[in-house]
């Protein structure tokens, strides 16, 4: 009983120490690089055999999307981490499809399922993910599993996302880094007929107060208020669970008096031009792209 209260006090002291005295920049600062290291294993007669491997790395808010397909099942998962001191909470949103039968007309019938898993582990621990259910009870089982190791390194600000992947051709396996942009490079032009204003590039931060921008077309100056806003949640369950629209941002365009917006342009950061007709008869052309590394 006494030992239990002593260990509780020790844990509370450690939590206080971690929370108040350890600089958070040391644990989660911009110089920290997170790496998800993945190996897909299969049981074999001589021991486990590696089918594929890969890694995804980036800043601490980088997420990893994993896709694994076979003839009868599709597993898609989005892994996220939340560092807590020397441990890390690993969360995974799963979206799975399994072939269950054939219809009377010979078409495959699939069932799909969405669920979430959460475990806590220390850095460099190995987590085994059994994508087709609980760990097999008998050694004769042929079910494959995924080994996931979370690592963090202290790097000098080099936190651009990176992907590496090695797989044999028999398995459909894909790893993707998912990064939600905090900033976007926006280039604006004003177009009327065959006259185009000079490009007006700018870096916008999401949810930042709106910015005034002046575009000159001919001798006329048009002033607009632009801001980067969060897009509406995805309608499909799969898009929402797997964050397939993570790199979509929306540009809200309003007149300078802050009244009703003229329109909202949404798109991926792919440097593709999108057009918005203005009440003045001009057309606003905006391209959205990833900002350059800082």
């Amino acid at each position, binding site marked *: 009983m006494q030992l239990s209260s002593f260990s509780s006090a020790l844990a509370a002291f450690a939590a206080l120490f971690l929370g108040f005295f350890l600089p958070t920049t040391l644990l989660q600062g911009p110089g920290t690089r997170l790496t998800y290291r993945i190996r897909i294993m299969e049981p074999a007669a001589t021991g486990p055999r590696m089918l594929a491997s890969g890694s995804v790395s980036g800043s601490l808010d980088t997420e990893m999307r994993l896709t694994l397909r076979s003839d009868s099942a599709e*597993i898609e*998962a989005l892994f996220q981490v939340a560092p807590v001191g020397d441990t890390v909470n*690993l969360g*995974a949103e*799963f979206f*799975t499809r*399994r072939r269950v039968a054939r219809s009377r007309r010979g078409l495959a019938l699939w069932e799909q*399922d969405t*669920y979430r*898993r959460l*475990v*806590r*582990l220390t850095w460099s*621990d*190995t*987590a*085994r*993910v*059994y*994508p*087709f*259910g*609980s*760990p097999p009870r008998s050694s004769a089982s042929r079910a494959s599993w995924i080994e996931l190791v979370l690592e963090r390194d202290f790097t000098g600000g080099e936190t651009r996302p990176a992907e590496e992947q090695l797989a044999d051709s028999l398995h459909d396996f894909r790893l993707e880094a998912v990064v939600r942009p905090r900033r976007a490079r926006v280039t604006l032009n004003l177009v009327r007929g065959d006259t185009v204003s000079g490009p007006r590039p700018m870096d916008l931060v999401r949810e930042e107060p709106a910015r005034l921008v002046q575009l000159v077309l001919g001798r006329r100056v048009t002033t607009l208020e632009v801001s980067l806003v969060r897009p509406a949640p995805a309608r499909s369950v799969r898009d929402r669970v797997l964050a397939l629209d993570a790199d979509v941002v929306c540009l809200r365009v309003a007149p300078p008096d802050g009244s009703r917006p003229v329109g909202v342009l949404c798109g991926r950061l792919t440097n593709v031009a999108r057009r918005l007709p203005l009440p003045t008869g001009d057309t606003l052309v905006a391209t959205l792209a990833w900002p350059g590394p800082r």
Partner: protein
Amino acid sequence: MTDVTGGGAGGTHESWLVQIDAELDGELSLVERAALAKHLATCSHCAGARASQLEVRVALARSAGNPHAFVVPRPTIRAGTLALWVAVALGSGLLAGWLAYSRWGGPGGSLEDTRAAIVVQ
């Protein structure tokens, strides 16, 4: 006319055999035929005797030169044999199902069993 009540429902097999003979000769009234049919439905012995009588008459008719005379063949599978086959089929189906379940598992199982699991080593 034969006395149905005397040798009928409460009568012996011999009296029913006489009735059968009379029926095949077309000598029974409608009421007597009904009483005989009721008895044949419950008495396999008399039903067999009637079938034998019919076979004999058909054989006699054929030998007398009537080529259209024929008799419906008796069912070769008896009720007991049929029941035995049904029991064997049910038993083997159950055995095959049990073997398949122990080898490959059931068709569904609980949903949670099919979901991914994360185990920290």
